[in-house]
């Protein structure tokens, strides 16, 4: 019997494609954000409110993933920015090859921001690098404030947690402080923003956060 050391990532092919995408985007200063959450946390609504706040000349595009239907792409296309739907036909996550294929035909040199809405799932999408600069996890207050403890991978790998649907706080037993504490017990440095897509509360902070990340992406793409 012989033991052979392999020391290879199981998803090495996905990681190879993701890294190539990341390098393409980084060279152009394009910010790519991969948004992950449970189904129904308000990802699409957050994207709608985000897109409606951009000036028409903003160079933003969206890739949205779902197991079935192009409902989300149709909702998001109303704002006039390029949108592509990935229908995974059963797969519970997006992978780098799906994203690469969805970008075909787009002039990436004319893009400053690519928002990716992953399939609603807090587990599987965390395993797949899509070539993003940052993952963002969205947690709505209609879920449990212990979700960071139950699904630590999504919170450990995300740069930002958006606590969404805060307008519903009077009606649900969601402890904001516990949610913050739980998220930071998994990822001490995670940024946290509170939003309501219904009232608009916190959306200015969210947009400001994206703007700061966009400026960072541009700064990194320029030789010093």
């Amino acid at each position, binding site marked *: 019997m*012989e*033991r052979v050391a392999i*020391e*290879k*990532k199981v998803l090495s092919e996905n990681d190879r494609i993701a890294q190539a995408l990341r390098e393409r985007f980084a060279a152009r200063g394009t910010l790519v954000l991969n948004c992950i959450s449970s189904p129904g946390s308000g990802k699409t609504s957050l994207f709608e409110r985000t897109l409606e706040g951009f000036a028409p000349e903003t160079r933003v595009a969206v890739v949205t993933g779902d197991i079935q239907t192009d409902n989300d792409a149709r909702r998001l296309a109303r704002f006039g920015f390029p949108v592509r739907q990935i229908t995974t036909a059963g*797969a519970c*996550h997006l992978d780098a090859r799906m994203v690469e294929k969805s970008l075909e035909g787009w002039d990436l040199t004319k893009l400053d921001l690519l928002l990716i809405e992953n399939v609603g799932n807090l587990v*599987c999408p965390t*395993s797949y690098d899509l070539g993003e600069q940052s993952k963002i996890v969205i947690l709505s207050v209609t879920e449990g404030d212990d979700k960071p403890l139950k699904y630590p991978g999504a919170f*450990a790998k995300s740069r930002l947690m958006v606590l969404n649907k805060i307008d519903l706080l009077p009606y649900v037993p969601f402890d904001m402080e516990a949610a913050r504490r739980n998220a930071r017990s998994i990822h001490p440095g995670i940024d946290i923003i509170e939003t309501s897509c219904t009232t608009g509360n916190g959306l200015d902070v969210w947009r400001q956060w994206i703007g700061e990340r966009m400026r960072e992406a541009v700064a990194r793409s320029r030789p010093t």
Partner: protein
Amino acid sequence: MHEMGIAGSVIEAVRVEVARHPGTRASKVGLRIGEWAGVDVESLRFCLEVLVKDTDLDPLALDIDFRPQGSELDIAYLELED
């Protein structure tokens, strides 16, 4: 249920390694899986069993090194026998 896709990637990697060692067969594969890798270990074990069953890789033992608070999802080693 992305464990089936992950199991497929493991099998693919095993076959590549076996092809590099003609005249041998794989008897055991060692995986390193972090708590935060987003993988259900029992589900992955089941998927690997299903994919291997009645193929030239059957039987293939599985050794999982589970890492608390880790994000690893690696193939660590393969045991080959003549």
